[in-house]
């Protein structure tokens, strides 16, 4: 069963999603061949206090054992420590630097990552959620710079750092310049995407991520199917990397732990 590390629930002003609830998301993923999934709250991105969206997400996910809620923090706000401390069964923490308007070299970020380092909690960096070329003209938000991520990751090599929604070239650069950065495959695309990507980076650094419900889920599944003949790489990207990074950290999400 595939593990999806890039899904979300909530509202987004520029797109109307057909998947709006946790049960609907779990059903949809199951129907597409996906089992456990990390899920974040979209309402943590634009709403001023991410704790509100996190609380809604954790409530919504309670009855869905395949959904693994991941809290989002804004390290420039005073409540990030409480969110991390309250994160029961914390699998990872997500940050959204470009929408929350800070650079990764700020002391706030360093303080957050030091806390994560103590428990070796993975840090998820949302590089973008949209194609910058198609953004609403009054809300242009560039992607998180690769150089900033490389610098942070190399300063904290013990912290697994997972970058969501990197483009192909960004993904290759992030992996080559660090020891601890992985990427999801949602935004990565070229002819024969995964065979081409794996000529440049090891499969251990790439995870299945669909970016549902922003994206149709099927394209990511079909990209993964492109390496079906390579059984080991298929398993590594589709499941094993996610279990290594997020599984066996205790908690209620037994299915992720037992994969």
């Amino acid at each position, binding site marked *: 069963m595939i593990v999806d590390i890039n899904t979300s629930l909530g509202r987004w002003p520029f797109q109307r999603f057909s998947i709006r609830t946790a049960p609907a998301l779990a059903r949809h993923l199951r129907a597409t061949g996906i089992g456990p999934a990390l899920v974040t709250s979209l309402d943590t991105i634009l709403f001023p206090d991410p704790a509100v969206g996190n609380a809604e997400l954790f409530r919504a996910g309670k009855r869905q054992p395949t959904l693994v809620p991941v809290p989002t923090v804004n390290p420039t706000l005073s409540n990030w420590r409480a969110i991390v401390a309250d994160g029961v069964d914390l699998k990872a923490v997500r940050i959204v630097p470009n929408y929350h308007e800070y650079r990764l070299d700020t002391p706030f970020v360093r303080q957050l990552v030091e806390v994560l380092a103590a428990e070796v909690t993975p840090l998820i960096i949302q590089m973008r959620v949209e194609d910058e070329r*198609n953004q609403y003209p009054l809300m242009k938000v560039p992607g998180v710079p690769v150089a900033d991520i490389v610098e942070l990751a190399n300063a904290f090599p013990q912290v697994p750092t997972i970058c969501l929604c990197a483009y192909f070239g960004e993904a290759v650069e992030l992996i080559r310049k660090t020891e601890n950065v992985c990427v999801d495959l949602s935004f990565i695309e070229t*002819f024969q995407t995964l065979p081409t990507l794996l000529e440049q980076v090891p499969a251990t650094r790439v995870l299945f991520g669909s970016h549902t419900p922003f994206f149709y889920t099927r394209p990511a599944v079909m990209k993964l199917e492109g390496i079906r003949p390579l059984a080991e790489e298929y398993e590594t990207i589709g499941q094993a990397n996610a279990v290594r990074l997020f599984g066996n950290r205790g908690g209620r999400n037994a299915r992720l732990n037992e994969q």
Partner: protein
Amino acid sequence: MTDERMIIDIHTHLPAKSGVSTATILSEARRLGITRLVNLGAWPLNATPEQVQSANDETMRLVRRHPDTLTGFAFLNPNHEKGFVLGEISRCVENGGLRGIKLEVERNARDPRLDPIMDACASLDIPVLHHSWNKTVGKVLGESSPAGIAHLGARRPRTIIVMAHLTACGMRGILDIEPYPNVYVDTSGSQPFSGIVEYAVKRLGPERILFGSDIPGRDFSCQLGRVLGAGIGARDRDLILGINAERLLQL
């Protein structure tokens, strides 16, 4: 893909600048059940007349070599002298077996310089596939938005126009072309953002939507996935994946 439905990709670029061989691309298409590719060719930005001829020669060569798999369109740069442009249509379509015209970003769709090309295509009953994108950043000089394509469609209602890049044109782009039944759209462009195929079916009808991948810069599997993953009926899906293109190209 296990069933026998016909899948026609209206938007491909061969030979690949990246060095991927045509044989590899055709093999990958076969693996995914794509039965025919429309080759729009490969050319540099602001191509000279010699570069246009060279690109079209290559398209004609590939079509002759793979007649069961490839259909070709001729690329034109409307900045060139009218006699040359119309001569290229005659050389490549009337005498060379190509089945349509590709226009890119050299001249905006609102520009009347396009009109003689459109009229020639109407006379020959062949479609024009025109680049389009609703860009917030990175717009190229001369690049057309869907509103520009709509303008062109209104000016030349006898010409069939395929507006490229559905996802990049967005809902606004769909609304722009909706009043003009001679304007179609292909499904390529940007990332596979959800909901856009369903919205296009609702506003335009499935008959005006054509599957396109834009390979080799893109991945057949990902591009097919956005159609196969959309919440549309089987008949609508089959129209988009092949039946519409078969009709349009008179295959």
